[in-house]
């Protein structure tokens, strides 16, 4: 193991220049993510968790501080840090297959034959259980299926890190639970490093190795990091009564609702 973590966030500060002046979103963010780790970022809405994810993705550049991935500075977005967007962001004029193929082509297109690229695309869609609807357009499938295709698109790029921005936020509770279970299996199989934004406490505890809890904005920072001490594979039903699960859940809820209760209508 190298002494450097796989993803390093060092003293990052983020200010946005808006029409109403500068907005201080994040300050003094320090985070290390190990290879193969599953990290969730949790906090009240507006706390800058998506901003932090976008910084790691390279979609935003920090006002000050440094972000490293695999010992290289994160200067721009790229396929090695694949993003699953909150609203799936599939291109509506392409079929599910073509959406994934577009990603596969941009990563492997220079090195591989068309046939191999198509095989990769098909494999990725099979992996998320969407093999049967490959040639449908996004508007023809349900929200949960769209999000699966979004995950397939990200996984097909064989990224070093999978960045997920509330991937299941827009789904109903049952579909969400099902996709969480699927994600657990996929991550166990691919050993991906994952950073995921969520506002769902159960989701965070079920999926993560460590939960990064963020204080409220503006000028949010990391309040606490909780290591979830639960063996894998994790089974949703069995965990419900596990004392460690209950403890983890309580710790997160305590942080969010007791110590960092959101001040409504502060303005």
């Amino acid at each position, binding site marked *: 193991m190298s002494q450097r973590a796989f993803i390093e966030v060092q003293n990052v500060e983020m200010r946005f220049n808006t029409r109403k002046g500068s907005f201080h979103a994040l300050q003094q963010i320090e985070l290390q993510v190990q290879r193969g780790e599953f990290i969730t970022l949790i906090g009240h809405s507006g706390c800058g968790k998506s901003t932090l994810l976008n910084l790691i993705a390279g979609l935003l550049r920090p006002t000050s501080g440094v972000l490293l991935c695999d010992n290289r500075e994160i200067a721009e977005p790229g396929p090695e840090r694949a993003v699953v967007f909150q609203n799936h962001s599939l*291109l509506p004029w392409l079929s599910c297959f073509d959406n994934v193929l577009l990603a596969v082509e941009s990563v492997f297109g220079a090195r591989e034959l068309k046939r191999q690229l198509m095989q990769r695309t098909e494999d990725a869609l099979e992996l998320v259980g969407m093999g049967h609807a490959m040639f449908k357009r996004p508007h023809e499938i349900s929200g949960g299926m769209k999000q699966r295709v979004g995950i397939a698109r990200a996984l097909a790029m064989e990224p070093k890190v999978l960045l997920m921005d509330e991937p299941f936020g827009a789904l109903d509770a049952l579909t969400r639970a099902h996709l969480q279970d699927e994600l657990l299996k996929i991550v166990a199989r691919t050993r991906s490093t994952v950073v995921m934004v969520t506002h769902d406490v159960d989701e965070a505890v079920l999926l993560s190795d460590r939960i990064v809890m963020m204080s409220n904005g503006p000028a949010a920072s990391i309040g606490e990091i909780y290591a979830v001490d639960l063996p894998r594979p994790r089974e949703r039903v069995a965990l419900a009564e596990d004392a460690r699960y209950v403890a983890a859940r309580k710790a997160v809820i305590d942080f969010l609702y007791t110590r960092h209760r959101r001040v409504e209508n502060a303005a």
Partner: protein
Amino acid sequence: MVSAVFHDPLAATREDAAPAKPVARAPLPARPARPPFDWRALWMRVLPPVLGLALLVGVWGLLTQKGGSFPTPALTFDAALKLFADPFYRNGPNDQGIGWNILASLQRVGLGFGLAAAVGIPLGFVIGRFEFASRMVSPLISLLKPVSPLAWLPIGLLVFKSANPAAIWTIFICSIWPMVVNTAVGVQRVPADYLNVARVLKLSEWKVITRILLPAVLPYVLTGVRLSVGTAWLVIVAAEMLTGGVGIGFWVWDEWNNLNVQHIIIAIFVIGIVGLLLEWALIAVAKRFSFEEE
């Protein structure tokens, strides 16, 4: 257990989807198969428009009952029958069938409009993509857009020294604005998410244009095209009245000089119907190329 329950509906849709596809594609648009014939729906589709048309003709008939310079519906209908019995005759340059006149006008509209599309759509892309260009050109567009197309006609006559290019020029200048503006708006409204996807996938600029920008902007472009064709068809009649030659606008003016009011009324109907057909054709194209958002 749980996953089995969830997989079932998926499996069901898979089986449903396979046979559904060919059935959905089979019926031709000309004769859709409607097993239990919905008389009420047909009634509601046919009766109100027919009634509206009948009302118009009825009022027209009532008002012209007492005679006068305005022809009755019956006289006009007779004239139309005679006119459309031989739409493609040629008795010298100033006396040609109505078919030739319509075709001449359509040709001018097609040329002027085609040139406008060739210039306006790329220009709209540039304005939408680069803020500098947008700030540079926007004031000019705002200034020139409200100008009546006919004000451009003398400029055309001056530059081209001939009536036909001047009319085409007028069509060009009046139909370019909706395409420029709509294309630019479309480019500016491409969802940021799609462009973020492009950035994460590191797509080449060419792929960004062909796979993301063009498809995303196409519905806007088609709206611009539709508006432009409408304007072009409005303007051609006026332009031809002034330039003369062959064309539906000139024909209206010529019939006015002959005091043949029946023909003018027929021309009004013909202009309306051709405009409607143009609109329908473009809506059909727009439907074909637009994607469903959600």
